[in-house]
């Protein structure tokens, strides 16, 4: 028995059971319909749910059921892939071919449903195979491979990376993640980020530092002091360090949250 696995949460509650009949809680509808991988998946679900014989599909019944779901998808404006509509057309065509009286001489012609049945079975086999692949232990998940350390003395130099390579790689990342506006990085942010790493490194050796120790007032110019201060604020905001003070006017301490 194949079921459509659902990994859905609705209003924080896990929603794992498929509804038993066509009534679907309104909130669940979208998640539910989205959980089908395509028209074949939906058809297989309907066939299994209504206990239909896949080798002798009642086309009228299945088409009616299928159209109901497709209309629901349409109604909630789920982006309805053309694939679903194409399938409707194909099913209606099969149904009508079955209604036509067959002249005796083409009696031996293939059942109009044969191609659909073949595709459903092929898809079902793949669906099962996919589940099996999912369950197999994999390196990095359930299999841990030996990887002890060794000192590398490489005879050949490792690949070089130029500034252009790096910039191109970053542009690629941005292009794909264009919805992450905040990933664009300007010089101001870069200098803050650099100082964040510098401060974290210092706090790795000295677990706790007095706030003022993080600033070299004599050597650093004002801009650098500002950047350092911004870096501390950003680190605190991201929860990477803690700033503490016992009492008013007593020394302020900075320590790593690590």
């Amino acid at each position, binding site marked *: 028995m194949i079921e459509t*696995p659902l*990994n859905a949460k609705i209003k924080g509650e896990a929603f794992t059971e498929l509804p038993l009949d066509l009534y679907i809680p309104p909130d669940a509808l979208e998640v539910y319909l989205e959980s089908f*991988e*395509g*028209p*074949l*998946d939906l058809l297989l679900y309907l066939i299994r749910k209504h206990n239909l014989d896949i*080798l*002798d599909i009642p086309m009228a019944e299945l088409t009616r059921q299928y159209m109901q779901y497709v209309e629901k998808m349409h109604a909630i404006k789920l982006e309805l*892939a053309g*694939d679903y509509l194409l*399938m409707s057309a194909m099913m209606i065509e099969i149904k009508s071919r079955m209604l036509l009286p067959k002249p005796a001489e083409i009696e031996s012609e*293939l*059942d109009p*449903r*044969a191609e659909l*049945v*073949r*595709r459903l*079975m*092929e*898809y*079902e*086999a*793949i*669906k*099962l*195979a*996919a*589940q*099996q*692949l*999912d369950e*197999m*232990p*994999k*390196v*990095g*998940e*359930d*299999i*841990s*491979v*030996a*990887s*002890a*350390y*060794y000192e590398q003395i490489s005879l050949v130099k490792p690949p070089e990376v130029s500034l252009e390579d790096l910039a191109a790689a970053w542009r690629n990342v941005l292009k794909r993640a264009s919805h992450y506006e905040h990933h664009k990085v300007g010089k101001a942010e870069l200098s803050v980020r650099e100082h964040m790493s510098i401060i974290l490194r210092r706090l790795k050796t000295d677990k706790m530092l007095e706030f003022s120790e993080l600033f070299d007032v004599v050597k650093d110019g004002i801009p650098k002091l500002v950047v350092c201060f911004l870096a501390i604020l950003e680190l605190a905001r991201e929860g990477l360090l803690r700033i503490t003070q016992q009492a008013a006017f007593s020394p302020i301490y900075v320590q790593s949250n690590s």
Partner: protein
Amino acid sequence: MSEANNLQELKNIIEAALLTSHQPLSLEDLTRLFPERIERPSLRMLLDELKLDWAERTLELVQVASGYRFQARQQFTPFLARLNPEKQGKYSRALLETLAIIAYKQPVTRGDIEEIRGVAINPNLIRQLQERDWIDIVGQRDVPGRPSLYATTQHFLDDLNLLSLIELPEMQDFSALDNSSLDFNLQG
């Protein structure tokens, strides 16, 4: 150095190499370890011994598609899993089904995959599988547009702990039923 000592030394070098390599080592890789020539039967014998040496220990020496590797015995998996909390999420059904089609029907084009699944495929899926080094392009089909043919890699087999594709779980290929039997049932 006596011959026994020498063999023990060779075995140690192989062990050190396998314990520090993060990918499987083939017999060919292993021969590269030594400046002098070493015959494959000797290597195989040493590997067998190594396997025995470790029979009762925490790792086991296994052979996968691209060679030999040490891996932690299954019983440690639940403990080791606690070390890496940043687990990668589950794979989507779309990705798994695409992978299954490539694994069982290879070589296939994107069109073949879409035909079997009945839906258009997100190009990101293919890219994700390629980045994971589980599939790659093995050629082009000689039809208009010359679409790429995808197949699974050795690395895919390694990651699934397999020596060859034959070891994949058998697919319940209903569609392989020949048409005559199908025909018979369909008349009903």
